[in-house]
């Protein structure tokens, strides 16, 4: 495995990918095809956003790609490792050693300090990690003066920054972020997104982020659009406006739910504060 440190570098090949991914929940009348034959690769050293209306399967795609959930058929890979072939223990160790996570909320253990939360995956593995790298991450996320605080003593934005540091601490092949700014105000959200983007560009890491927010998606190098469990579009070098336009077309194509429409309107308002 090649680790780029400090400078941006482009690594050929995908950090994570899924092939013909199908995920079915329930059966018979209640059957829901959350993923219906998706094939997508997330290139190493890039920041990819997954977008789509509610129920489009974007979260399911992330969960399956990250080894948190299993596919009904098809295959998911981290690097060259096929996840479907792994048992729970190997899968757990793969998540611990090769994947980082940032969830929407409840990212941190309330009983551990900031520093302990950051090194948690390495501590679970019984590894020392790379102190210099961890140290530089702490500076990047700007939490040096909070290292010995408990999560309850931090703001929501600070908590998410700790989660970002934790996700990158073990230098994983790929970091999956699931609506990382969903619970934050726009300013804190911007900080977290900037952090993710900077880490990819300056430190050569790989990030896959699920979001429904066009502003968030605009931080990515590329956006993939999902609808009805299928990959419907890709967009290089996205901007918030273009993403919003593309999303509006989903709405135009037939609003799937009032919630999607509302959240898109909210996004539009946030983009143009009065």
């Amino acid at each position: 495995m090649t680790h780029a440190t400090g400078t941006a570098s482009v690594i050929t090949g995908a950090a994570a990918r899924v092939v013909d991914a199908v995920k079915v929940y329930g059966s018979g009348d209640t059957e829901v095809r959350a993923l219906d034959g998706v094939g997508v690769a997330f290139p190493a050293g890039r920041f990819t956003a997954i977008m789509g209306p509610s129920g489009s399967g974007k979260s399911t795609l992330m969960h399956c790609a990250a080894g948190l959930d299993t596919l009904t058929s098809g295959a998911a890979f981290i690097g060259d490792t096929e996840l479907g072939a792994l048992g729970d223990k190997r899968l757990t160790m793969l998540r611990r050693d090769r994947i980082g996570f940032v969830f929407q909320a409840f990212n941190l253990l309330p009983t551990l300090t900031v520093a302990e939360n950051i090194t948690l995956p390495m501590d679970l593995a019984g590894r020392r990690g790379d102190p210099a790298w961890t140290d530089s991450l702490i500076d990047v996320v700007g939490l040096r003066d909070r290292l010995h605080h408990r999560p309850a003593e931090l703001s929501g934005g600070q908590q998410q920054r700790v989660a970002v540091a934790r996700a990158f601490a073990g230098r994983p092949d790929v970091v999956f972020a699931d609506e990382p700014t969903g619970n934050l105000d726009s300013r804190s959200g911007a900080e977290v997104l900037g952090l993710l983007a900077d880490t990819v560009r300056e430190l050569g890491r790989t990030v896959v982020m699920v979001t429904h927010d066009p502003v968030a998606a605009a931080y990515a190098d590329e956006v993939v659009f999902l609808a009805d469990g299928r990959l419907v579009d890709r967009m290089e070098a996205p901007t918030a406006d273009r993403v919003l336009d593309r999303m509006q077309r989903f709405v135009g194509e037939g609003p799937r739910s009032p919630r999607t429409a509302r959240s898109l309107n909210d996004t539009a308002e946030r983009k143009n504060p009065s």
Partner: protein
Amino acid sequence: MSGTRASLRLSMAGLRTHKRRFAGTFFAVLLGVAFLGGTLVMGDTLRSSFDAMFGRATGGTDAVVRGDDMITTPGESFGTRRSVPTRLADEIDRMPGVAAAEPRIEGPGQLLDEDGEPVGGGGPPTLAGNWIADKDLNSYQIAEGRAPERSGEAVVNRGAAKAGGLDIGDTTTVRTPDPLKVTIVGISTFGGEDAMGQTTFTALTRADAEKHLTAEPGRATSIQVRAGPGESQEELVKTLTPALPEGIEAVTGQEVTEENQDQIAGQFLSGFTAGLLGFAGVAMLVATFSIYNTFAIVVAQRTRDNALLRAIGATRRQIVGQTLAEALVVAVVASLAGLAGGLGIAAGLQALFPAVGFPFPDGDLVVSGLSLALPFATGVLVCLASALAPAIRAGRTAPLAALRETAVDGSGSSRVRALTGGLLIAAGAGLTVYGAVPGGDSADPSVTLTVAGAVVTLAAFVVLGPVASAYAVRILGAPLRRMNGRLARRNALRSPKRTAATATALMIGVAVVSLFTVFGASLKSTMDQTVSRAFAGDVAVRVPAFGPESGALSPKVAPAVAKLPEVEHALGLGTGVARVDDGGTAHAEGNGGGRALTVTDPERMGDVLDLGAVEGSLTGLGTTGVAVSQSEADDHGWQVGSTARFTFTDGEKQPFTVRAVYDRADLAGDYVLTREAWQPHRMQDSDSLVAVAFRDGVSEADGKAAVEGVAERYGNPEVQTRDEFAESSAAGVDMMLTLVYAMLALAVLIALLGIANTLTLAVHERTRELGLLRAVGQTRAQLRAMVRWESVLVAAFGTVGGLTLGAFLGWAMTRATDSSGDGVFTVPPVQLSIVALVGITAGALAAWRPSRRAARLDVLGAIATE
């Protein structure tokens, strides 16, 4: 009204949804109630069975003529009365209104089996007596064979026959205590049962009984009288009384039966039942903490629900009512199940007792209203009381709490708590220590003060628990360096109150176990030391009985042993009894108040016993002198030359001059008399110990073998070396401890259920965290280890607390019960290590199910939990 119904509906819904959460509470209440109910039912059943048995056995006796004064020494259940002349029976027999009168002669009679080993004993009396010809007057009936007719014939009760493998036609020995060869001609039953309790009874002819069981022929223990037709028991007593000599009384048969019943019920059964109830109490106390914890956690987990209810208009009362209603439903259902379990326990014991050799008289289970109502009420009250504080806390939920994040509960280590606990512990420990070791020279230790102090100390431990848990978990968890251990430590530190309450349940169980362990070990050491310090001989000939007492030994053993060439000294020590007058008239009326006397050759005592410092002289006590222990002398204010007034069982009052005061009463007893002085008042000639010292150069093995050769001729009493003597003196302690441990296993089990329940609830509470941990790479094995370590930490905290408290209270009890001030306090390291190990292992076991449940968690589901 409708509000109440709403709370009830909510609690039923809550119970249905969260059945598992209440499983721990349910079982804690169930076990406690079952134990309590089982004890009460069994006590009642035993009592009624024994009552019925005595009624059947002694129902034919209308009056008993006996000595009117009974002298009881402390710790003795059967008192001693003066004997009655047997010729009185003939006089009474001729009186009008009397159908029959026969003397009853009874004395110690240890039956030996074919191999020469004693049958029965070890607590229950082993008796011999005359076979009373009149069927109605004899409490034993012939079941097989016939009554003894010629000298050397005997009837033994069926229980003894079974235990000793004896049958009609067999020849064996009875120690009366002189060995007496007998041929068994009949098997008897007592009131239809194999035995009276576990007593063995060997019946001889009247002539044999008079010859061997009393000091001189012509004396009987009592005279049993049967009334003529139409004569009531009261009328019979009225007729008899004027004809009796001074010091002899007549009482109705009814009265004697009741005395017997009281003796069994009042002394044996009450003690037995009280002991069991004590353990049931400990179990209930432990259950209290488990129940409190369950409700506290359930209420905490339900904060949002309760807040929402408050927000939409539920009153405080309704919220409190909802929680209490849940507790009530659990309590009632669990208590009912517990009652059923209790009946099962009683029935099971009734079946089990005979199997282990304890005859449980036949009879149906006696289930009184009280033995149902009391456990039920206790179960319900304990459950409701434990749920009260959490319920009130639930009622205080602010409506806004629905909108707030539930924070980690860090309370419990407040300064007020630390201060209150500190004061309590100072007061409790102070009181305990003061009770155990009072200042001043003359002050005796007080068990009452010590127990009061112990209760306050226990309360202090409970109050201080949350404060201590934080430190304890940090210290105990310090060796845990790996991530699972560290996480476990943090989890245990999360809610000090919860950790403390969980651990307290175990702490109480462990504390009581440790207390008994320390107390028992100290008792054993004390006995051991007593023997090794006071016994200056090489071997002891004795009949070991339960506790430190000894059975009767033939008085011919000592002279026979003394003749051996290997033996330098052999001294027999017998026992007597007398009432000692304090100088006042306090003892003139009541019964009891007796003191045990040591009857021996005082001049030679120093050869085989170490008496410590002796003031005055042990020589030439004659028939008017007595030697007294220092502590008795202090109590009565005697010095050498003082006068001690004795009243013997024959009613004789005699002043004795205190001729010597000695230091060590361990084996010598408090009063030493010459055989000549005791002679006129004796009931039976017997020794309880023959102390033997060998000549120089005789090895222990050779000497012992020689003494054993002699002992064999006298009914084969045991010959013990110093070590064996010490060990057998303390053998009863081990038996008691085993019983106590068995009883306490229940309390520990309930504590474990509590730990398991708390963990299950905690796992449920932390679903999201566990999901996160699994997502970022905690393996299932690591997660299980984390839960297990938390459990072990909590258990270790409880165990260490319990050991500390138990050792302290064990020390206090040892001191408090030791009025002579020379008892030994021992902390048995091996036993206590085992207790610690069991406590901690139990913690690991308690985590078994919760950890597996936690490990089975679906990662995605856990993360997605809203």
